[in-house]
């Protein structure tokens, strides 16, 4: 992209200061080429939930009202689970892995001695974590197809939404990781992710939360899940634009904080 087009000029400064973040992705790809197992581990959790809903709850609960449609319960839950698989993949990679590289392995110090800078490291790692989340989403989608829960072709429209979820969670995950002081701090990650997973209108519609609906809307995963659900059911509303905006803002804020923190921690 030419550096004087309008879109370039309004881009966040971090993006303008990046040179070749794709090299970080390339580096991580070399590492994971040798250990492909990590890709498989993280998407099992939503998959097991999915199976349990297909087999058990579905029969008990029956259909759910969503956007004026009546849909099978498992088909209501599946998109939200797909959204959380994108979240899981992105968060796993952007927390523990980045913490190790930041505090122990000195990998970033070497990168920063090359023409790469802090924005390259932050963008590269976030993109990588997003891709990892996306691989979870893709394998999850494959499961949906096999279980006959994929619904229509609209489910493919949910994939870009999964990318956006991965981006937002990777950026926020990396930003938070730069503040972690010990491995024990990672217990907080679990403490935060479980309620996000359970209370993001994942398992029942927003209306079921009654007066507490606004709390649910504070959850980034709520916006992600709503986006994936809408897309996979072929529903487009103005509200979805808000969901997109929330996730983009989270991504930009996370990226900016992560870059600044890498500068303070490593370039001293």
């Amino acid at each position: 992209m030419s550096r004087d087009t309008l879109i370039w000029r309004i881009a966040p400064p971090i993006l303008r200061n990046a040179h070749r973040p794709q090299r970080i992705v390339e580096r991580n790809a070399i590492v994971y080429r040798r250990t492909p197992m990590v890709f498989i581990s993280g998407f099992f959790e939503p998959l097991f939930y999915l199976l349990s809903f297909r087999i058990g709850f579905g029969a008990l609960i029956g259909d759910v009202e969503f956007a004026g449609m009546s849909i099978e319960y498992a088909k209501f839950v599946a998109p939200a689970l797909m959204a959380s698989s994108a979240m899981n993949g992105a968060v796993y990679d952007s927390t523990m892995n980045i913490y190790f590289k930041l505090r122990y392995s000195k990998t970033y110090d070497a990168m920063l001695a090359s023409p790469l800078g802090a924005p390259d490291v932050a963008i590269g790692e976030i993109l990588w974590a997003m891709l990892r989340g996306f691989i979870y989403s893709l394998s999850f989608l494959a499961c949906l197809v096999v279980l006959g829960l994929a619904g229509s072709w609209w489910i493919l429209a949910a994939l870009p939404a999964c990318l956006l979820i991965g981006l937002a969670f990777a950026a926020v995950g990396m930003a938070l990781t730069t503040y972690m002081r010990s491995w024990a701090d990672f217990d907080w990650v679990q403490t935060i992710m479980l309620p996000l997973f359970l209370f993001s209108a994942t398992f029942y519609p927003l209306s079921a939360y009654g007066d507490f609906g606004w709390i649910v809307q504070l959850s980034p995963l709520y916006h992600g899940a709503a986006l994936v659900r809408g897309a996979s059911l072929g529903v487009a509303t103005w509200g979805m634009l808000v969901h997109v905006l929330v996730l983009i803002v989270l991504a930009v804020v996370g990226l900016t904080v992560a870059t600044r923190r890498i500068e303070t921690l490593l370039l001293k």
Partner: protein
Amino acid sequence: MSDSPVILAHSLVKRFGSFEAVKGIDLEVSPGESFGFLGPNGAGKSSTMRMIAGVSPVTEGVLRIFGLDPAVAGSAIRNRLGVVPQADNLDGELTPLDNLVIYGRYFDIPRSECVERARELLEFVQLTDRSGGRVDALSGGMKRRLTIARGLMNRPEMLLLDEPTTGLDPQARHILWDRLYRLKQQGVTLVLTTHYMDEAEQLCDRLVVMDAGRIVAEGSPRDLITNYSTREVLELRFSAGQNAQHEAQLTGLGERLEVLADRVLVYTEDGESALREVHTRGMRPESSLVRRSSLEDVFLRLTGRSLAE
């Protein structure tokens, strides 16, 4: 390329919080020169090197590398630098070969070219047979060699070496010196820090001695020896714990005395006659040695510290 300095520093200061590690130094290094920093631990050598390498912001003063300001053109500067940091920071998740290849990729060098250069450099540092193994499994000296090889991947115009040969065996040191000498002949600027005076004498056209954040002397190795030391040195060893005791008896001998933990150094133009005088005064050292003055003596004189510390 013109002959404008590749490094230009004026009143350069580095502070960590309230602690001043570099206290306003002036430097000028010309293209193709090989330049050394000497100084005791904590003198501020690495802090200076890191500012030059564009990985540590300048607190105060002026710094220009290739005529560019690292605060705004850091990436362009680093593109032309080769860096061997004091502490190895190899990528433990990659093999030695991939360490070099990906590092070349950070400089946007085409992949096939990276592989070719990496193989040549692994050959040079004699790690070809370890190229596909684990970095963690390398010995300390091997890691050092790999770090040096990595610094050469981008064929830098200027090479920054922070204690490059610490931990290397004598053979590996000589191989590196030879390579550095050839790079210098090709016009590469070398900037290094070292605690080995023979290395400084061999490699550096010009040196600065730093102490407590300041430059305390500057010149070629020969000039420094002429200016800060005598022609010869008489080394005396007395039986354990008696060195200090003999200090009074030795007064007036030579131009200067240095009493170290393990020996007494007498700085003099004529070591043999000083030794005769020691015997005339009735002292019986366990051993004695007359040698030419070296950089080590300059270092001792200027920093008041023995390298053996």
